[in-house]
Every structure is written in C-alpha cells, then in structure tokens.
C-alpha cells in the first residue's frame, strides 16, 4: 500500500485491463473482489509485481482484484474507452486504427484529461465496441462545461492557483525577464487579482502585468472546478 504512488508500468496497466475484460467476458460486472482465470493471461510480466504491491491476490488459478487494483483497473479502462470514443467520434478514425492509436496514448492520460474528454463527448456510456465506460466523477455531477487543462492566465479567476505550463511568446527579452521573476514552466503560482492589472504571486515575488502578458502565460489550474465563491483567500470584500 505504501507503494501506491509509484506509477504503474504499461505492462502492469495492460495486465489490469486484461483482468477487467476477462471479468466482463464472464458476463460479470467488475467490482472489488471479482476474479478472472489466471492461466489464459497474455500479460503475465507484471502480475507478480502487482500482487506484491497489493493490486491483486492470486488464489489457486484465479486472480482477484483488490480495492486498489479495482480502482486502478477501472481508471485505466475508462481512459482506454474514452480514448477510443474520442478518436472514432471526433477524429473519425476507423475503429481498428482508433484502437491502435488509443493503445499508444491511453497510458499517458491522467484523470483530469480523461474527465475533459468525457465532458467534451457528453459523458458517453459505451465505447465504440459497445462495452461499458465506467462513469467518472464528472458523469455523476453531470458537468457540461469543459474547462481545458491548460488555459491562459486570463481565464483563471482571482484567488485561483496553478502551475505554469509554458509561456507562449517568442520575445526573448520578455521570456528572460519573466523567468528571472520566477514565472517559468513548472512553477506554482497564485493569481491574486485581475483588475486593474494582473497580480501574480510566485515564490516570494509579486509580479504585476497587463492582460496582454496574461494571455501569454499558460497555466494548469490546480482545482478542476472553478471555485464557486472565492476559495482560499483570507481576504475578500468584493474581490472579483
């Protein structure tokens, strides 16, 4: 359980998803404790490691999903099927090609990205093959407005935090100045206010700039959802 944070390898993810699909093939609904036959597994490499780290339990010739294993498998299956949906519906790829492409980048999707895709596609219930896509948080809350993962700073609201994704300018002098102020890729920032000028806190620096510059700074907002009414600011009389 302590190792929960080490990311799974592609083989391990594939192994988990295979177990999931074998459970589905038995016409069972995958859940914690559901099991699949061990002997037909194509992806055997990761199994030992997964068992050791508490994702799986091997009982005889059955392999059983633990709670962590179930959550991970579910997440991965969801990413996989959403990716297929995206590629076939939005990009109009042939099913086979969609599947191949999806295989390549489903490993890179994180939960946030998957959620964005899910919202974009209107919370699809099934993958192109007709299999069930495990619903995510966004499906439950019924979110319909999509917020991209990386937005210009001008899209953030006062009081929000995030990390700088990149600076979208080719002006070297500005880039150098911003990075010397600490505004550079990967740095955590907090947007203090937007009017009359943008004010940003990064490390110990407070930096102010105009909207033009704010549009060039692309950030990954920390919270997925927009804070409804000012979160985190100790101080807010008619802030925004």
């Amino acid at each position, binding site marked *: 359980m302590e190792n929960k944070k080490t990311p799974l390898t592609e083989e391990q993810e594939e192994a988990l998803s295979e177990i999931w699909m074998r459970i589905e093939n038995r016409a069972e609904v995958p859940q914690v404790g559901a099991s699949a036959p061990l002997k037909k597994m194509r992806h055997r490499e990761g199994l030992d490691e997964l068992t050791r780290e508490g994702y799986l339990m091997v009982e005889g010739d059955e392999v059983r999903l633990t709670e962590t294993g179930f959550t991970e498998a579910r997440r991965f299956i969801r990413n996989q099927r959403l990716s297929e949906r995206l590629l076939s519906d939005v990009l109009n790829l042939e099913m086979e090609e969609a599947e191949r492409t999806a295989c390549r980048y489903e490993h890179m999707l994180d939960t946030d990205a998957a959620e964005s895709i899910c919202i974009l596609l209107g919370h699809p219930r099934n993958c192109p093959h007709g299999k069930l896509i495990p619903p995510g948080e966004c499906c439950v809350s019924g979110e319909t407005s999509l917020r991209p993962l990386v937005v210009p700073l001008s899209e953030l609201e006062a009081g929000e935090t995030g990390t700088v994704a990149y*600076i979208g*300018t*080719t*002006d*070297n*002098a*500005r*880039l*150098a*100045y*911003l*990075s*010397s*102020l*600490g505004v*550079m*890729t990967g740095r955590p920032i907090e947007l*203090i*206010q937007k*009017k*009359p*000028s943008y*004010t940003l806190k990064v*490390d*110990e*620096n*407070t*930096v*102010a*700039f*105009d909207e*033009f*510059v704010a549009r060039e700074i692309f950030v990954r907002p920390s919270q997925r959802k927009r804070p409804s009414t000012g979160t985190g600011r*100790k*101080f807010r*009389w*008619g*802030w925004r």
Partner: protein
Amino acid sequence: MAQEPSLVLTGGRESIVTGKLILVGQPNIGKSVIFSILTGRYVVVSNYPGTTVEVLSGKALELDYYVIDTPGIGSIVPRSEDEIVTLRTILSDERKSILQVGDAKNLRRTLMLTLPLAETGSPLVLDLNMADEAEKSGYVIDTKTLSENLGIPVVLTVATEKRGKDALLDAIRRPSRPSIRITYGPRIEEAAGLIVNALPRSFASRRFLALILLAGNPGLVDDLLKDQDDGVKRIIKDIISKTQSQFGEPLSQVVMEKRAAHVDRIIKKSLTKREEQPFATRSLQTLEYVSTHPVWGFLILALILFGLYEFVGVFAAGYLVDFFEDVLFKGLILPPVIQVLSHIPEEHVRNFFIGEYGQITMGLTYALAIVFPIVAAFFVAFSFLEDTGYLPRLAVMLNKTFALVGLNGRAVIPVVLGLGCGTMATLVTRILETRRERIIATLLLALGIPCSAQLGVILGMFSKIGGGAIFLFLCFIGLQMLIVGYLAAKVLPGGTPFFITELPPYRIPRLENVLSKTYFHTKWFIREAIPYFLLGTAVLFFADVTGFLARLIDLFSPVVVGLFDLPKKTSQAFIIGFLRRDYGAAGLFDLFDRGIMDGLQAFVSMSVMTLFIPCIANVFIIFKERGYRVALLLVSFVFAYAIMAGTVLNYILRLLNVHF
C-alpha cells in the same frame, strides 16, 4: 568595445587601487545602500526599481577598489537603456571583480543572475542582502553549502542597518573565480563557441556575452556591439538564427531552463523554510492586496493625494511659506540687510541688490522663502511614500490610464518623480523600454507635470482662489496631457509595450533615510535653482535698467494681453518662465497676491505657466537625452501648445462667464 559609460569619479585622494568592483543585481535590492557603505558617498535610495539610472563610482573607504554602482537589471538579457548600461559596464574591463547584491528571501531569483555572472570568469562575491526579511519570511539559508556549490564567497547582510558589513569586506578582500560551470547542451555550446571565436579578442568575458546574445532578441546584437563592424555582427546574427532554427522554443527559454534546473538543485541543498508566518508580515501582505484593489486601491490613492495636498499645499505652501516670507524674511532678515545695503551710493548697484529686481529682495527671497519650504515638504512626503514601496502599486493602478497615451504603468515612476523635479524625471525615462515611450514621457513631463516648487506655488495660489479652481485646473491640465499624449501615441510609430513589473514588499520607511533623502533632494534642487533665480533676476534687472524690459513686455503684450486678457506686467513672469517655470509661477503668485490679477486671470496665467516650456536645466537634459532634433521639436511644440491652449481656455472661461 562600445563607448565607456560616463563615470563620475570622486575621491581624488591618491591611493593605490588594484581594480574595479562592480555592483550588479536585480532592481530594488539595495545595491546603492551597499555602495554608500563601501564608498561613504551618499546616493539616493528608495523602495522602487529604477532609482539608479546612471553608473556611479567612488573609491572604497576600506578596500583598494573603485566601486561602481550600476542600474538594476531584471534579468541578464537587457530590456531597456539602463540595463544595457549595466551590461556594458560588466563587459568593459578585464581587471574587475563583481559583487552581486541579491535578495536573500528570493534565492531562486538571485541565483538566476549569479549563474550567468559566473560565466564572466571574473572573481565574484555574492551578497545576500535583506537577510532580515528572509528571516521574517521563515527562510534559513545555508551560506556555507551555497558557497561551496558556487565556488565563491557568500555573505548575508542587512545593508540598511550595516549588519554583515565586516563579513562583506572580508569576502571582497579574498575574491575567487567561480567554480560552477553550466553546459547548455551540444547545440547551444557549439553556437556559443562559434560566437566566442567571432568576437574580437579585445572583449572580456566572451562566453558570457555569447550566451546573452544567444538568449536575447535579434536587435540586441546591434545594441551591445554598436562599435563593431557589420561583418562581425552579421556573422553572429547568422549563428544565432541558425541555432534558433534547431529549436522549437525560443533560445532564451532553452538557456533559462538549464539555469533554472541548476538553481533548483542548489536551492534544494542550501535553503529550508519554516512554515509559520509572523503576524506583521501578514498584515503588510493584506495591505498589499488592498492597495492594488480596483475599488479600495483608488480610495487609498485618493487618500494619499489628499494627504499630499494637505501637507504640501496647505501646510507648507500656506503656513510655512507665510512664516518664511513674512516673519523670517520681511520681518527679521531683510530689514537689517536692506539698511546696510541702502548705504551704497550708486543707485544702480544698490538696486541690483535690493531694488524691485534685486538679487536679494527678489531672487533670494523667492528661492528661500517660497521655493525652499515647499520643495522640502514635498520631498519629505515623497521620500516617505517611495520608501514604503507604494509607487509600483500606483503603476498597477494606473497602467490602463497610461495605455491611453501610449505608455504603460512603468512610466508612473518618471511621471511621479516629475512632480518632484522634471530634470531628474527626464533622466529616469531611461527605464522605459522603447524610444517611443521615452519620447512620449519626456513630452508629457515637459508639457504638464509641474515640479514640486511650481506645484507648491500653484497649490498656495489656488488655496486662496478656492477649491473648485484646483479641481478645474487638474481637469484642464489632465485633459491637455491626454490629448497631447493620445496624439503623440498616434503619430509616433510602434505599439504600446506590454507591462510587467515586480511589486516590492511594503516596508516601513526609516526616518533617517527619509530625512537624508529629503536633505539630498532639496539641496540638489536649491543648488540647481538658485543660480537660475539669480540669473533670471539679473536679466530682468538689466533689461529694466536698459529699457529693454519695457520693449520686451511690449513685444509679449499682444499674446499676454490680447490672447490671455492678462495685465501687461505678467509678461515679466513669463519671461522668467523661460528660465524656470517655478520662478515664473512665483512671480504670478506675487502679482495675484498684490491684487494686480483677479481670480480668473490668475487661473489662466497659472494654467499657461504650467504648460509652458520646462526650466532651462530640464531643457538641457532633454537635448542630452533625446538628441537635438527631437528636443527642438518637443520644446517648440510645448511652447506653441501652451499659448494655444491658454487662449482657448481663456476664451471658453470668459464665454461661460466663469468667476472665481
């Protein structure tokens, strides 16, 4: 090499000097305070970036060095004239040591400058200043580890309290060449190598320069290598553009990210942070948010302006001037002096000193009784304000307004400084990035920003005319600046530049710094002003004696009487106005005081005087900074515009039958 920056050398005492010590660092971190400590020279110190726009130097008191103070640089890639000056100074000499003054609570930022400075190959010392603020924010810096990683001495100081001075002196005495060396990957390294070979051997620190050129905009090659032949510049530009084409992202980003990665590694080893935040910091932080708030911020601004008016306008221009003029001068000082001098038998000589246009009765009295108390009061208020760190917040508040006239928030600093002294302010326009901005700012300063002396006279006079007049006056002058600025922005090619500024933390001003700054500014001002006051008085005197004044007044009267409906005598105020606007304004004040002008006339004449060409010292600076062509154009435009605007104002006020 590009031209050597003009150095102001002081000292004069013969001593053996082993080399130069160049102070380099980001803006507003106390380089000038360190400079004062090292050399014993007084320099103006404030809490906003861009106080130092010229290179200053002086012999160190306890070291064998000439110490050179440079304008602060935001990053190693320069953005404005003052930053280029700093780079040139770093590049100018082989035999030099560098003292980097950095912000202790902002180690990341400081080190982002240390790494490129280490590339100069010169002995380097890192002084982490404002160690007290770092401590308050909970930072603990391991200077030993830092020093080992960089291979240079690292010291902590609190310059304003002279803490850490001995350690600093010690570190400077044993300089060492930095051992840290960053490699930027094969493609950048290859390009840097090619540029190093292309640069003439006479250049010091070629690798340092090569990396700056690579990380800079294409125009930087022309700026930094101004005196090189075009062949060299072309070769270097070719190398840069070829290298750039191999990368998807701008080269500066590639270089900066390498440095940032190094800095991260060093910081991980040498910096820890305690979490709790003391109350004092937090309340100052709240003030920080409130003072740039779209609503509260403007209220605070209004409050500050009101305070300024009460202090400078009502208190200084009213009570203090009355006291100085009536009690001190007319009551105590003048009568005995006049009595003594009235024994001079020759009438003209006597009048030269104590006549209507007498050096003492007019020149000195104006300068010392009217201008001195007002200027001193203004600089007390101004020094206090700038030491708190409020001015950059003002830039945040006014950025959008300034955008209307083709400037951005950065221009707030020269403009506000212009309320102190237009000559200083015109020098400070160097912190603006483009030539276009510098011209517009110089124009607006020359046109409508009254200096403190004039402002005091204006406030003094208007407090007698009535509050409504002040409001109308502000609207009128503000409108003129908007119109002229807007048109200038339309006429001059180029766009409004982007605005980025850093906001320094609020600091509680230190009384001694406020007082010494006031003393310094006031002394500077008085020394600048008195010769012109005396000269102006002398010109008037001789013009009067020879009868030339009467003819000059006749010459001016079509404008003064015909267009402005003013008494003929006001001409002499405008004639002095050519030398100094504030002296001219004081003359107007006097005429109004003696009942020669009514309220409306006083309003019109003061408005024209405010728009009138700035004092002669300022005109000289405009010529020096902007070149004679632009300067000539600016000055004649301002002169013509003042007359035109005054005529229109007078016409409209009379048409509407306004009375004060």
